[in-house]
């Protein structure tokens, strides 16, 4: 075992230790230590500008931490190649940013980057899982907001990630589509024991979806616990 590998309980998939990011004089994320267990859906809640999304971007190294460390299944993620890390820690953002072309092209995007071709049967299985059977050859420009977000989720799942980061995935959707995506995420987590961190400004959404909640204020972790414990107010 290398010096940077810290023993961790097998159940903890993602763990941060004193994680921080400073940009110039501003400390965006400060001294956050927490772990996310396998099959857990952790809600990261806080007011606008509290550093929720910035914290999430540190977990797949889209931004570089300036202090502390992140461990993926006990291994310091700086020991992993960034592409390998991002395959293992997927991300779904507020806007889906689908690539021009059809749905299948988008679902295949991740595996294609590694020189793999996702078989059509697997594409269809993923689309069925996200509630879009028969959508493989639809052009992405003809999809509704909710459908686009479902494709975005299928695209992230196609990489077979060990953890999934969800950055306000429903905030750009109408109520009906939002409920559909919430149910879908919960179902995927239940069926696959996927480890998830969900950033949301909506406390009710965190209450409905999450098994545990972390509350951030001014870049700092101020409370963690079950939704009933920390979202009672």
């Amino acid at each position: 075992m290398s010096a940077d590998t810290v023993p961790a309980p097998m159940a903890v998939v993602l763990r941060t230790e004193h994680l921080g990011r400073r940009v110039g004089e501003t400390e965006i994320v400060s001294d956050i230590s927490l772990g996310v267990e396998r099959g857990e859906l952790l809600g990261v809640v806080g007011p606008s500008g509290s550093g929720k999304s910035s914290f999430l971007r540190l977990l797949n190294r889209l931004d570089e931490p300036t202090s502390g460390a992140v461990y993926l299944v006990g291994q310091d993620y700086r020991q992993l190649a960034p592409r390998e890390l991002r395959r293992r820690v997927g991300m779904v953002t507020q806007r889906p940013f689908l690539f021009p072309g059809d749905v299948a092209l988008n679902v295949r995007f991740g595996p294609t980057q590694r020189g793999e071709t996702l078989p059509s049967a697997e594409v269809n299985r993923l689309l069925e899982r996200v509630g879009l059977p028969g959508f493989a050859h639809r052009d992405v420009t003809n999809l509704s907001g909710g459908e686009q977000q479902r494709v975005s989720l299928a695209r992230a799942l196609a990489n077979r990630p060990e953890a999934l980061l969800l950055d306000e995935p429903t905030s750009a959707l109408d109520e009906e589509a939002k409920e559909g995506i919430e149910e879908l995420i919960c179902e995927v987590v239940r069926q696959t024991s996927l480890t998830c961190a969900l950033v949301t400004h909506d406390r009710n959404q965190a209450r409905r979806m999450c098994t545990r909640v972390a509350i951030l204020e001014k870049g700092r972790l101020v409370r963690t616990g079950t939704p009933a414990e920390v979202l009672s107010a």
Partner: protein
Amino acid sequence: MLRSLFHSQISLGFAQAAIASVLALLVVLLARRRNIHLESDAAIALLRGIVQIVAVGSILMLLLKGPRWTSAFLLTGMVLAAGSISAKRAKNIPGALKVSTYSIAAGAGVVTAIMTWAGVIDTAITSLIPVGSMIIANAMNTNGLALNRFRSEVLSHVGEVETALALGAAPEETVARYAESSIHSSLIPAIDNLRSLGIVWIPGLMTGMLLSGSSPLYAAIYQFVVIAMILASSGLTSLLSTMMIRSHVFSPAEQLLLKGTA
């Protein structure tokens, strides 16, 4: 009138400059009558202008009389200046100066070297410097356009780029599409110049050749040669700079560094 009074070309030039300055000063005096005071600014600018341009002319006169290798020295200086000027179009992209200078040096250098070797450009300083400077100046413009467009494209598509990175894509691949469109856009002026040659404009070089007594047909063909060389060097510069700049917008940990507003 002046030509009969001054027999030396340099004295004639100074006399012409004096008349042009007097005209400019008359306009300044006219402005003064309307309470617009430009006297000191205009006088200083005129004096400074003549001193600067005479200094540059004198240096060129000395260099043009020098050995042929002086061309390489002069052209290198031009490439360095061109790299520095066009790198400013790639604000906030680390390494833009290096990328610009290398690309212009390679783009303009390869074309100038091949054409000189083939005998299309004469090795005399009086030929190599003007043609070489045209090639370098156009490579500089194309490079500036390409980098500027690339920067704007990436800044307008940060979400798409980071989505692809988050899915495990190679950094250079995530911006490849924007590099391609930048090459295309940067070459539009060079292609349009070639398209409109002789119809919309008669370039300066051809005009100069005609004034110096060359055959109009040869002047026309040689002008085409120069514009085609410009397209070749600009294209090569643009290809190289957009290929090299792609990796400069990412950190070693494959994070997009270029963010903000386009």
